[in-house]
């Protein structure tokens, strides 16, 4: 009697949590949908972009989502290529996450373009001296590859399929993963190179940037996979706990490597406190948006997760730490994009001519409500896409029998 009463309370809690999440999604979809409509009907005029801050929240969101995709993909591809048996059960899940987060990034960059309908020109008239042209080509190849890997992976788990065909499918997936690793490294590091090659922007013009983007992609992507495995894995058995422990350890190492790179990036110009790069570093650390670095990124995205991951092996707490890293990594992306644009290259430009109604050359930026609205819409779109695909393709999660093989 008591057991059934506890079970009924548990079910009621689950139902009310599901209703709350559903209501939040509907709210996000409505707000975001209105943002999409505004963008499609009236362009980007309600943004806070200017001639001097041409890239803002949407570009930061694009590199954030594409980083999640590349990181999740690399985790799956490395598992296939190096035959890491213990991670094999999460491969399809990681691939599907990569396939869902990339369209979210492409949606954001699509809205950032002044003429999305002309994007095909990059394919039919490629200018390969442009890093952006390379990006588009790499993304296209990567998306095709992820879909092909998912399809082969889907085929290999179909019931009644003969073992020889399954072996062939798995071999093909492995070949695609071998091709995919340099491709994903190319586009994850390449996004960093897109910024780093802009010599006019001192904050970005660093050889460390492509590496920083790649490690950031691995860190945030692994964090996302870990959080999803913690939250949505069907069987909460010993194998799942072992898997979570391993993912937690991997994530801890990645956070530390990423933090060391960040330390190098900030410490080098700050040591003697001279040079214009130092001024930009000061802007990130002590400027008007200091809290983005100190509170959102360093506290919630680095220190708290490190403490949680180092202190406990609880799968739930590991999941919470991973979710914190995955979500707050957006602050890292914002701090990479915005400071690169806030300083005029030419002395005195911020004080130059203002017209009779007071318009000036503006070097300040804070995302407008409309920009946040569109970002919320992209998140709602991604959540909906994820919700649909895991119902259409439940095989992304291994069945309990397969799950219990983990670690054996």
């Amino acid at each position, binding site marked *: 009697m008591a057991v059934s009463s506890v079970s009924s309370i548990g079910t009621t809690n689950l139902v009310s949590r599901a209703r709350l999440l559903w209501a939040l999604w509907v709210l996000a979809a409505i707000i975001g949908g209105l943002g999409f409509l505004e963008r499609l009907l009236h*362009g*980007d*005029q309600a943004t806070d*972009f200017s*001639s*001097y801050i*041409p*890239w803002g929240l949407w570009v930061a969101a694009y590199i954030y989502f594409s980083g999640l995709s590349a990181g999740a993909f690399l985790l799956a591809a490395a598992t296939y290529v190096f035959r890491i048996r213990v991670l094999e059960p999460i491969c399809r899940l990681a691939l599907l996450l990569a396939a869902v987060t990339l369209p979210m990034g492409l949606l954001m960059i699509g809205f*950032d*373009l*002044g*003429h*999305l309908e*002309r*994007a095909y*020109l*990059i394919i039919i*008239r*490629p*200018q390969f*001296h*442009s*890093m*952006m*042209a390379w990006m*588009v080509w790499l993304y296209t190849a990567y998306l095709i590859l992820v879909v092909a890997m998912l399809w082969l992976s889907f085929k290999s788990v179909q019931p009644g399929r003969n073992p020889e065909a399954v072996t062939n499918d798995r071999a093909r997936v492995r070949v695609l993963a071998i091709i995919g690793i340099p491709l994903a490294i190319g586009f994850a590091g390449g996004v960093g190179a*897109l910024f780093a*090659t*802009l*010599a*006019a*922007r001192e904050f970005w013009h660093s050889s460390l940037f492509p590496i920083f983007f790649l490690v950031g992609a691995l860190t945030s992507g692994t964090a996302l996979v870990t959080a999803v495995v913690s939250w949505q894995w069907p069987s909460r058995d010993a194998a799942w706990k072992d898997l979570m422990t391993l993912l937690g350890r991997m994530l801890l190492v990645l956070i530390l490597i990423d933090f060391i790179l960040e330390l190098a990036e900030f410490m080098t110009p700050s040591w003697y406190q001279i040079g214009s790069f130092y001024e930009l570093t000061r802007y990130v650390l002590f400027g008007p948006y200091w809290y983005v670095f100190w509170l959102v990124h360093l506290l919630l995205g680095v220190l708290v997760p490190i403490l949680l991951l180092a202190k406990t092996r609880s799968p739930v707490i590991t999941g919470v730490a991973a979710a914190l890293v995955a979500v707050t990594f957006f602050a890292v992306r914002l701090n990479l994009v915005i400071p*690169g*644009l806030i300083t*005029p*290259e*030419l*002395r*005195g*430009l911020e*004080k*130059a*001519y203002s*017209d009779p*109604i007071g*318009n000036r*050359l503006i070097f300040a930026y804070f995302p407008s409500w409309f920009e946040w609205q569109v970002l919320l819409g992209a998140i709602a779109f991604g959540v909906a896409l994820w919700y649909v695909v895991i119902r259409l393709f439940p095989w992304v999660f291994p069945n309990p029998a397969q799950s219990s093989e983990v670690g054996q």
Partner: protein
Amino acid sequence: MPRYVMVIDQRNCIGCYACVAACKTENDVPLEHFRTRVVETVQGEFPNLRMELRSELCNHCDNPPCVSNCPTGASYKSKDGTVQINRNRCVGCKACIAACPYDARYIYPGQGFADKCTLCIHRIKQGKEPACVATCIGASRVFGDLDDPQSKVSQLLSEANSSVLLPEAGTRPRVFYIRKQSKPD
């Protein structure tokens, strides 16, 4: 082909902003944006002050990072050496704006394409000077063909010391500055 350049003789600039107004009118530049501007900077401490008036525009570089960064070829270096934009090929990715060290570009509001100084190429084709040059009452802005030794720009650059903006950027600008040499920076 001619080698068009502009010389900004800062000794003659009086800061009247007629160039800015003429450019806006001639090229239908949107209100909140500029194809050219005059930057006023004051250096030193009272009573030892020095004011600089510096006209700025697209430098029509010989090694233009905007062109290298354009993924569709919408930004291009034309045969006469000026840097131009094909509006119909621009996807509005803003890579050229981020790449330009001279902050010379903007996105045309409501139209979504990148825009900037064309050196009034439509006027040059008609045998006229760019609007900012034609209107400059102090003859501070001078336009011409550097390959013609008789041109005003060739003569000015042979007579006076000139410099370019941000030479360290390696862009090889085609806009040259002749500065007042009265006091050091």
